């Protein structure tokens, strides 16, 4: 298609084209008609002047004839009033002509419009002078005359004095006329010729004007034809553009629309918008009204602020895009059966500029539900594979006996948790007891997982613990609060099962291996060496806490088998607490004159009577009575008055209360206030005692004394 001329296709000029055509038409009319009319008037005047001059041209001759006739009649004593009247008329006519010539009358008026071609003024002056001279001879004839004859019987008719005077005047005038008439006639003829030439010029000019007008009309008609053709081409092109735009908007899968500065959606949008947003009334809708039913109030608020920023011209577009809260945003729609259907939409905003100003926002919306689901699936798979790799790494590097033991103990722990869940409960107090019991179990499991470096188990147990603490913090606890807990239990159980399977596969002999080369089967429930277990735990926790710690153990090899489990549980909690709460960061230790590496010592002794003593000592900052008191008050375990009244021994007793922790925020290593309650529970079960000794800035020592004969009790409890 031939492109429309630029001056027509530009929106501004395109709109101006009809006005331009109208203006040209008006200019043409004014430019042709006004001078045409003026020329016609001038021509009319010239014709009138020509006629008048033609009439006056005979006047001198007529005047001369009248003079001669009057004199002849006077000679014959005939009646002279007639010829004298003609003389007066001729004089009056020539007077009028010259008067008009001098006074810019009808004739000179025409000529005055063309001064260059007017009568030569000296010639006119000479004509006037000649006429005046001639007219002086005529003056006596113009007045009324008495009868010029005298009648007598004797002499008959004869001229009287008046008659003789008249005869004299007529003779003088006739004589003057003979000399002046020629000049007068020539002057009038010259004037007539001049007017004629002028008239001819006017006619010529008018003809040229008409020809010019004809040419102009043809050009104008051609111009208008071009204009109309261009407009038609433009209209066709616009129709094509509209058709193509409609096809694009009908076909494109993305939602496309413009947002006006008022925040309203423009009149045109892609058809897929209806499907994406499940509504048909999108045109003219406020953007916020489009979003409100499908996104959360928080997202809506953020999106409103974001759109405000988009209208700010100063902000860079790339920067703005990076903070777009509607990227892969979760939306929910009524699914038609009363429920909600969740999807993910991706909104992309582009500024539409008019010069420097942002005139509108072009928004494209894509349904990325499948992409998001796939990304999540990939992330889950990646996490699973990473977890498996980590687990495999851990399994390979762990003593199989330790791993078996851990899995066996964990299975027992989870069964215990499930049994706690299964116990019937209908009131809040019963539910709360369940939560507290489960918390201790999960915390113990977490500690053991940490000690073995099984991060995937530890993190799941940590998440389970967090959920339990959340439930515990509620004023009233009901059965529905346990739904997330049982899901966490299921997740942990599933993970431990897969871990078990992994251990089984690692332990299985490879196909085709020769006898004798098989991996020795793992002894079930072999007990792990405590020093190694606590060493692993110490390293893991110290690394996470960015501390340098050396763990020393004494006598742990002598722990009777039936006490290994409680000693392990207690040691795990206290070693972890020693590193998290007691040992200072290397810089802090150096600053107060200590070695950068903190020391933790775990010692087990058994006397001849069978009494056992477990002692965990660290050379850290010691217990701060002030901090313990403040933490107990802030966590609501005691009132300020009660805390103030407590002796140091009572203050240390707060450490063993469920929920106590001096850490403001919980992490994987502490802060939930569960560990010490686990210690207390274990010691209580074994009917033992706990003694706490501490010196500010020097050390903390926990001494657990287990009376003889508790081995059997522990075995029964297990």
């Amino acid at each position, binding site marked *: 298609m031939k492109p429309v001329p630029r001056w027509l296709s530009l929106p501004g000029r395109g709109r101006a084209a009809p006005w331009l055509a109208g203006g040209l038409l008006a200019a043409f009319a004014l430019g042709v008609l006004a001078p045409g009319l003026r020329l016609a008037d001038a021509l009319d005047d010239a014709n009138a002047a020509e006629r008048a001059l033609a009439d006056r041209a005979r006047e001198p001759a007529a005047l001369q004839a009248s003079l001669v006739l009057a004199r002849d009649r006077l000679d014959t004593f005939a009646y002279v009033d007639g010829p004298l009247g003609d003389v007066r008329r001729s004089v009056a006519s020539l007077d009028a002509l010259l008067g008009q010539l001098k006074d810019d009358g009808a004739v000179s008026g025409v000529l005055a419009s063309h001064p260059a071609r007017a009568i030569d003024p000296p010639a006119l002056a000479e004509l006037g002078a000649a006429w005046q001279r001639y007219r002086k001879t005529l003056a006596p004839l113009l007045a009324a005359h008495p009868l010029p004859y005298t009648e007598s019987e004797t002499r008959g008719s004869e001229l009287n004095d008046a008659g003789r005077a008249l005869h004299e005047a007529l003779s003088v005038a006739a004589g003057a006329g003979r000399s002046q008439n020629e000049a007068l006639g020539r002057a009038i003829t010259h004037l007539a010729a001049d007017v004629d030439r002028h008239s001819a010029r006017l006619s010529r000019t008018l003809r040229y004007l008409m020809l010019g007008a004809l040419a102009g009309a043809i050009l104008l008609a051609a111009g208008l034809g071009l204009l109309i053709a261009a407009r038609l081409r433009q209209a066709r092109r616009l129709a094509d553009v509209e058709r193509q735009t409609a096809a694009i908007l009908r076909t494109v899968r993305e939602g496309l629309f413009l947002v006006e500065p008022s925040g309203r959606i423009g009149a045109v949008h892609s058809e897929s918008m209806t499907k994406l947003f499940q509504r048909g009334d999108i045109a003219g809708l406020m953007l916020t009204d489009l979003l409100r039913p499908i996104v959360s109030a928080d997202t809506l608020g953020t999106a409103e602020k974001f759109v405000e920023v988009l209208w700010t011209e100063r902000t860079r577009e790339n920067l703005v895009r990076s903070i777009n809260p509607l990227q892969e945003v979760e939306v929910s729609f009524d699914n038609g059966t009363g429920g909600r259907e969740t999807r993910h939409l991706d909104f992309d905003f582009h500024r539409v500029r008019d010069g420097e100003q942002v005139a509108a926002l072009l928004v494209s919306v894509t349904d990325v539900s499948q992409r998001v689901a796939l990304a999540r699936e990939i992330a889950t798979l990646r996490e699973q594979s990473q977890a498996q790799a980590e687990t495999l790494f851990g399994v390979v590097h762990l003593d199989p006996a330790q791993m078996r033991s851990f899995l066996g103990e964990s299975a027992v722990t989870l*069964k215990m948790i499930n049994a706690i869940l299964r116990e*019937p*409960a209908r009131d809040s107090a019963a539910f709360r007891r369940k939560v507290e019991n489960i918390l201790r179990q999960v915390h113990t499991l977490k500690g053991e997982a940490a000690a073995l470096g099984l991060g995937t188990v530890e993190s799941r147990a940590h998440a389970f613990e967090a959920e339990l603490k959340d439930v515990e913090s509620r004023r009233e606890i*009901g059965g529905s609060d346990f*739904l*997330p*807990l049982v*899901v966490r239990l299921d997740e942990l159980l599933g993970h431990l099962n897969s871990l078990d399977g992994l251990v089984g596969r690692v332990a299985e002999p490879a196909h085709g291996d020769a006898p004798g080369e098989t991996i020795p089967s793992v002894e079930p429930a072999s007990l792990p060496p405590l020093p190694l277990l606590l060493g692993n735990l110490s390293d893991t926790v110290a690394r996470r806490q960015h501390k340098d710690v050396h763990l020393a153990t004494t006598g742990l090899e002598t722990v009777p088998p039936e006490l290994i489990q409680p000693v392990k549980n207690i040691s795990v909690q206290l070693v972890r607490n020693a590193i998290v709460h007691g040992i200072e960061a290397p810089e802090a230790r150096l600053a107060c004159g200590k070695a950068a590496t903190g020391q933790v010592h775990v010692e087990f002794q058994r006397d001849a009577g069978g009494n056992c003593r477990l002692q965990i000592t660290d050379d850290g900052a010691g217990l701060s009575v002030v901090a313990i008191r403040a933490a107990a008050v802030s966590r609501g375990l005691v009132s300020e008055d009660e805390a103030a009244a407590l002796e140091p021994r009572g203050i240390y007793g707060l450490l063993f209360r469920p929920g106590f922790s001096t850490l403001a925020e919980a992490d994987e290593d502490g802060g939930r206030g569960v560990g010490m309650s686990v210690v207390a529970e274990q010691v209580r079960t074994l009917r033992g005692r706990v003694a706490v000794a501490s010196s500010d800035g020097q050390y903390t020592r926990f001494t657990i004394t287990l009376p003889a004969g508790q081995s059997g009790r522990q075995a029964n409890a297990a």
Partner: protein
Amino acid sequence: MVTEAEIRTFVDGATHYFAIAANQPAAIGSPYLVTEGLPAVHEYSGLIGISGRRQGAVCFTAPRAMLMVLLMRMNETDTSEANMRDLIGEVANTISGNARRDFGADFVISVPDVHTTRKGETLPLPVNIRSFVIPINWRSHSAKLIVCLD
């Protein structure tokens, strides 16, 4: 892995029935897992098969006494076997309706299948999937919602 939201949908279906039909809400007991074997069921059970994004079954099981009180509460004097079965089917229907509403086309939910069992008998639930058991306590009675999805 079964999510809390999925379990909650089934639970809401069951409790909704008691709130509307019996004009007395039911409470949820402490949920637990059945890790080995099949969950024990009461005399009357409505079983809903699930396929699509998830595979498995959901079952509402209640003792005869509970259903009888429920019928009486609904001013129903007919406590015949057929009426008991209809009632358990209705509860299961409400649960499946709730699930259809919340899960949409992702879940294909079958028409409830009503079972009557004697003590010690079990339902044909998937054996290799851990079941979530959620006690539904209503008045002094207790029913169970069993969610068994992979």
